[in-house]
């Protein structure tokens, strides 16, 4: 039946019966499932317990929403994050009261710092037991207030549907973030009225998304006169949807300006583009950081001047005029004073910038830009990511270069997640991110254990995609239990462990900044990762020498089950370039390989 036909039929149906009847009563648990369905939720990541059993009962009775049983609530939150970041939709988690909720706290904080839309439903003890230190009671709204964008304790089943609809609205609007809905068990049983999502929206939360055109005009005029401009972009562009990334490319193309990005923004601008400088910040490229330091006009879009990006604040880009587009007014002038603040959705701001640029027939300062690019090429010539190759031992960078080579030949849609540490930074430096929503990493919170559950969430959303968690051997153990989830749902996630037997990033700081006193950063006992993978029901592979790498990677890419690849890498390798904390962009430490160029130029 065509839609027009079905509409006609619907019109013919006698509406009286439905409209005159009392609004149908439903239990709280039914209301929850109904509201989630209305919000278009297809997947919930969760873990049952006493305080959410009525909801699980409803999940059992229906087929529209798929429940993914994780192995620890922390995993549910990261999986929901991975799902959200790779789809642009809201990720949903469901956990029980008390320990279920407290286990969710890390993931909520992670989603808050990285602006990921997540709705987390937590069970709560019955309303009449709240405040009595009841079994598995925790003050969930109290605990999660500072680590959510918003949270509510619902004490009336008649307001439950609205609370859920509003939670989705808040999670996805403006600067996205996590929202907790705490629902006591008696409310899940009680009968109440279902309310549909309001068509007119939720007026009490309506963040500004359209830019102020005067500010846009001022910004574009600065851009047109810029001699040493740079785009400094961030996760806000990814959050604004794929169209924003396309607009950034258009604007970059038309202006000819160089582009760098934060960790969170990787993929918004294609890494294989000539105008791409690589990531900036603490482990950013020489060319990106020097461009930031020496630029005369900085166009920051959807990034927030985080300390890992700016380095020492009073040495940060001292001569530039700064334009800052952010959807969150509290991000503007927080760490760095900017000259042209623009509160707007990144996509809408980019669209407006392009429009003005074209309307006013602006042209870039070609001669000056040519000089600027020549300077940038000189910085590029440093080859700051160079490392000392080895025939005997696998260099972590080499492992990623080989992975990259294999990925470039693979036709599947590719998604990379990471844990936290050196491997994360190397992944950001060495892997190709050419499209938005393809790189999931814990940026703001730096949560070890993020990558595997996030990969589970990504693979659920993209069953045919190639999902790889670039991991460290220490981080992976923080949420290794999610192997079991991957096996249960037949998720062919690949876990590519750069195993240096050290908390490499900690060791690096101890070497460079703490007099080589390696306090507790070596892991004396590690599991046999191949056997571990097999014990879970997955596949285990190992590469110990450089010549084994290609074969192992090729094998990994062909497996149809969750696969751990234990890549034994150089234990002493450090991640460069590096801006030690408290230093400026012009005070990068380079690898010994690049050092000789360094002396000449700096």
């Amino acid at each position: 039946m065509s839609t027009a036909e079905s509409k006609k039929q619907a019109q013919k149906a006698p509406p009286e019966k439905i409209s005159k009847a009392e609004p149908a009563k439903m239990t709280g648990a039914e209301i929850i499932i109904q509201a989630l369905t209305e919000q278009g939720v297809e997947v919930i990541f969760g873990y049952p317990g006493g305080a959410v059993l009525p909801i699980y009962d409803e999940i059992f009775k229906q087929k529209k929403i798929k429940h993914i049983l994780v192995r620890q609530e922390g995993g549910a939150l990261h999986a929901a994050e991975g799902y959200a970041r790779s789809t642009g939709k809201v990720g949903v988690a469901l956990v029980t009261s008390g320990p279920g909720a407290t286990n969710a706290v890390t993931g909520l904080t992670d989603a808050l710092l990285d602006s990921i839309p997540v709705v987390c439903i937590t069970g709560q003890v019955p309303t009449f037991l709240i405040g009595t230190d009841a079994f598995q009671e925790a003050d969930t709204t109290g605990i999660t207030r500072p680590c959510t964008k918003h949270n509510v304790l619902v004490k009336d089943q008649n307001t439950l549907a609205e609370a859920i609809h509003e939670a989705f609205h808040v999670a996805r609007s403006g600067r996205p973030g996590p929202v907790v809905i705490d629902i006591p068990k008696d409310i899940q049983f009680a009968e109440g009225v279902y309310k549909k999502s309001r068509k007119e929206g939720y007026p009490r939360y309506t963040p500004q998304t359209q830019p102020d055109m005067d500010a846009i005009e001022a910004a574009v005029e600065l851009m047109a006169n810029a001699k040493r401009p740079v785009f400094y972009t961030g996760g806000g562009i990814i959050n604004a949807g794929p169209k924003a990334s396309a607009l950034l490319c258009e604007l970059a193309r038309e202006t000819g300006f160089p582009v760098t990005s934060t960790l969170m923004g990787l993929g918004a601008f294609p890494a294989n583009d000539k105008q791409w400088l690589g990531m900036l910040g603490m482990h950013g490229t020489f060319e990106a950081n020097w461009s930031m330091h020496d630029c005369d006009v900085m166009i920051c879009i959807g990034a927030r001047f985080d300390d890992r990006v700016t380095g020492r604040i009073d040495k940060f880009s001292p001569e530039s005029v700064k334009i800052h587009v952010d959807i969150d007014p509290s991000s503007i002038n927080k760490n760095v004073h900017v000259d042209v603040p623009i509160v707007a959705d990144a996509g809408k701001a980019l669209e407006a910038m392009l429009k003005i640029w074209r309307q006013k027939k602006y042209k870039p300062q070609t001669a000056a830009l040519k000089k600027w690019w020549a300077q940038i090429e000189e910085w590029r010539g440093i080859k700051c990511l160079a490392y000392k190759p080895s025939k005997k031992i696998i260099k972590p960078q080499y492992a990623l270069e080989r992975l990259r080579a294999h990925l470039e030949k693979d036709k599947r849609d590719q998604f990379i997640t990471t844990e936290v540490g050196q491997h994360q930074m190397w992944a950001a430096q060495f892997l190709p991110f050419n499209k938005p929503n393809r790189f999931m990493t814990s940026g703001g919170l730096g949560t070890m254990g993020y990558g595997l559950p996030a990969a589970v969430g990504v693979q659920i959303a993209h069953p045919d995609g190639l999902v790889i968690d670039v991991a460290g051997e220490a981080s992976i153990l923080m949420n290794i239990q999610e192997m079991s989830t991957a096996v249960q749902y037949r998720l062919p996630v690949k876990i590519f462990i750069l195993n240096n037997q050290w908390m490499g990033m900690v060791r690096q700081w101890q070497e460079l900044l703490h007099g080589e006193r390696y306090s507790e950063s070596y892991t004396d006992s590690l599991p046999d990762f191949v056997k571990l993978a097999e014990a879970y029901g997955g596949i285990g592979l190992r590469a110990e020498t450089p010549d084994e790498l290609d074969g192992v990677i090729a094998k990994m890419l062909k497996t149809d089950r969750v696969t751990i690849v234990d890549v034994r890498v150089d234990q002493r390798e450090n991640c460069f370039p590096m801006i030690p904390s408290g230093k400026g962009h012009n005070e990068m430490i380079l690898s010994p390989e690049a050092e000789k160029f360094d002396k000449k130029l700096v």
Partner: protein
Amino acid sequence: MVTAKAKKSKSVYAPGPENQTVESHTLAILVNNEPGVLARVIGLFSGRGYNIESLTVAETDHTKHLSRITIVCTGTPPVIEQIKNQLTRMVPVKSVDDLTTAGPYVDRELALVKVVATGDKRIEALRIADIFRARAVDSTLSSFIFEVTGTTQKINAFIDLMRPLGLVDASRTGVAALGRGQTAIGD
């Protein structure tokens, strides 16, 4: 404090002297009166290390369930700006008015002050209360409770004067404030 180093910096946003003076601002915040809203506002101040000097809250619109929070806070101008932005983005916050920058405003505090004294001190306490237009709302042969309203400075002065005369207890409401003229909060 401006360090010598910061002064020398060429940075366009090095902490200049004008950005470093600590100011006191009176903010009027209109919020949905829902559970946890005050905790949310207070948590912002404690979590981000902002200073509150005074805070008052009560429902001001019963039908719409709106409460008005009046906060006197201190900070450098960028910090005050941050506080306002951080408050504004909270879901239950409807509007944030900075009365200090918005124009002239009236601010008042009420205090109850208990003075235990006899003889000359008791008479002196009454005399000062009269000057401050404080009312005695409770009295025994050896004590008074005075009710006094006024600006924070006036209340401070009153309390300072009462202290040597036998002040044993004081309770203050914190600041309530409204902008002068016809405009209302959120206009």
